[in-house]
């Protein structure tokens, strides 16, 4: 089985601040990390690799050359190959241009059975690239995958997370699945694998627009219809509190809390 994982290097948003005047992200000096949902996507692929001998896991990303450290991280977790789509021509891409580029990279990689991507990246929060790549490749997509139930011959059955429950979906392979954090617990890197990934020459293959057969005008800023008017941090939502106990206990606790807040 051949699995491809889409990954992105993102600024650690725990450390990122927004320029209050310009409304843009202040990225200077902010550490970059593997996008958390993408780590879940990779873990899902590696779990399958553990269960199905002969499975290969390739990670693909678009980003500047320094994104290769994130791909080393993926290799150190257990991925077999890593590809970085990197070129000045890709700069300034919105989700539309990004998905064109990533889809072209995946086509160059050849056949696959499953593509895993994270639900969304923590810097842009669009959740668009995964489904757009699927659309460009003409394959079905299931977003918000929280559990893989069964992998069969030519199909996969997954649970798709909803706000108040989940859907069980059987989908034909090849397909694209986007992972949420509930899907699994990403494994740690391995020291030996870190050393292998970083010491082996060309453990990350770098492709530019020519390598993946795209014209410069089909990628990057020139192929990006989206214009960002304003970035902002949504006001933090208060954390919900789950009440436990019998119905009587829970209702009396609820009434007490509402009284404390002077709602009642």
């Amino acid at each position: 089985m051949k699995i491809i994982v889409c990954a992105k290097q993102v600024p650690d948003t725990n450390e990122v601040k927004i320029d209050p005047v310009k409304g843009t992200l202040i990225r200077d000096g902010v550490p970059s990390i593997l996008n958390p949902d993408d780590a879940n996507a990779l873990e899902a692929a590696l779990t399958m690799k553990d269960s199905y001998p002969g499975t290969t896991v390739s990670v693909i990303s678009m980003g500047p050359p320094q994104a290769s450290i994130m791909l080393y991280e993926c290799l150190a977790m257990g991925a077999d190959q890593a590809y970085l789509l990197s070129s000045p021509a890709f700069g300034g891409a919105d989700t539309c241009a990004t998905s064109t580029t990533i889809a072209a990279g995946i086509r160059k990689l050849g056949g696959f059975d499953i593509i895993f991507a994270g639900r969304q990246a923590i810097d842009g929060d669009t959740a668009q690239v995964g489904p757009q790549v699927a659309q460009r490749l003409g394959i079905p997509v299931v977003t918000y995958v929280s559990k893989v139930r069964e992998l069969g011959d030519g199909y996969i059955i997954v649970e798709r997370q909803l706000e108040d429950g989940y859907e069980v979906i059987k989908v034909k392979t090849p397909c694209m699945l986007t992972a949420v954090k509930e899907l699994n617990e990403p494994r740690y890197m391995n020291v030996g694998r870190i050393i292998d990934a970083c010491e082996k020459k060309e453990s990350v293959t770098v492709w530019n627009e020519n390598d993946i057969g795209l014209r410069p005008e089909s990628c990057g800023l020139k192929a990006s219809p989206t214009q960002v008017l304003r970035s902002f941090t949504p006001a933090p939502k208060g954390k919900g509190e789950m009440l436990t106990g019998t119905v009587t206990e829970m209702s009396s606790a609820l009434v007490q809390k509402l009284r404390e807040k002077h709602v009642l």
Partner: protein
Amino acid sequence: MILSPKYQLIQKLARDFAEKEIPESMQEEIDQTGKYPESLYRKITDNGFFGIKIPKEYGGQGGDNLAYVLFVEQISRVSMVTSIYISGANSLGSGPLLNAATPEQLEKYLRPVAEGKKFPAFALTEPGAGSDAAGLQSSAVRDGDYYVLNGRKTFITGAPIADFAIIYAKTDFSKGAKGISAFIVDMDTPGISLGRNEKKMGIIGMPTSDIILEDVRVHKDSLLGEEGMGFINAMKTLDVGRLGVAATALGVAQACLEEAIDFAKNRKQFGQRIADFQAISFMIAQMATQIQACRELLYNSAVLKDTNAKDAGMHCSMAKLFVTETACRIAHDALQIHGGYGYIKDYRIERLYRDIRVNTLFEGTSQVQQIVISKELLKK
């Protein structure tokens, strides 16, 4: 030092693991009960952390000394006792084997250490032979194909949980240090018993006890290296081990700094945060600067060791001396910033202060490091 991606990732791995797997509540519980959680021990072995520095051909990860000190520092920043488990396997347990073991011995003992299946102990110190290690009195007398070991080893880290120990004993009392030989001894060998579990000031959760040897018969295949080469084996092991101790102390010092900063920003006196008093802010500036100096010295010493620089051993001693002494002072200052609260067990700094203290003592006291350094500088 600017770290390459390889070292950055090793640092990140250790930091992520420690922060996620060893929460404060668990650290407190280990300190209070003296019990090290089996589940955590298993996670350490499953992730191969006992073999970071052990070559890949023996089931290890093949890391160098720089990788190792970066790793230990990050673990120790969260849990010093955990770093002692990791160094017990990677350093004092594996060093003697890597220095002198036969291929058969490496397969039998080193591989299981790397894979987390066997835990080693390093048994050099005796009641009357601490800094004066060459004055040890344990004996190994040849009897046909066997050696018979007698004596008492003291303050042996991990002895109660060890599967085997590297025991240093004299095969020839007339030759002083050159009469010392090393043996690999399974801890279930008849004649071996343990002293009581020592009640230590810190690193509670890693048991330490004496190993008592009474007519312990071991086959000559258990001899590690040649007869009379034991002392050199021990010194070579300690040489590298010093980097690990310095890294351990550095990690705890960093934790002390973080605790001090956090406390100073939250504690209010005289109507303002104590961090806004210059006396406190300057202490913090000093601590952070000292930590950075320690870090550079340590990393540089590790690189010197990795590149087999001529005087690398002296630099390892310098790193241990300077980093551990400085770290203890930083812990002192960090506790001082906490005021009376620092003396209360509810505050993390109280444990850090106790844990950090041993670093100037074990694997060669600060004074022994000064002997090593001055001998190197003053020799003809």
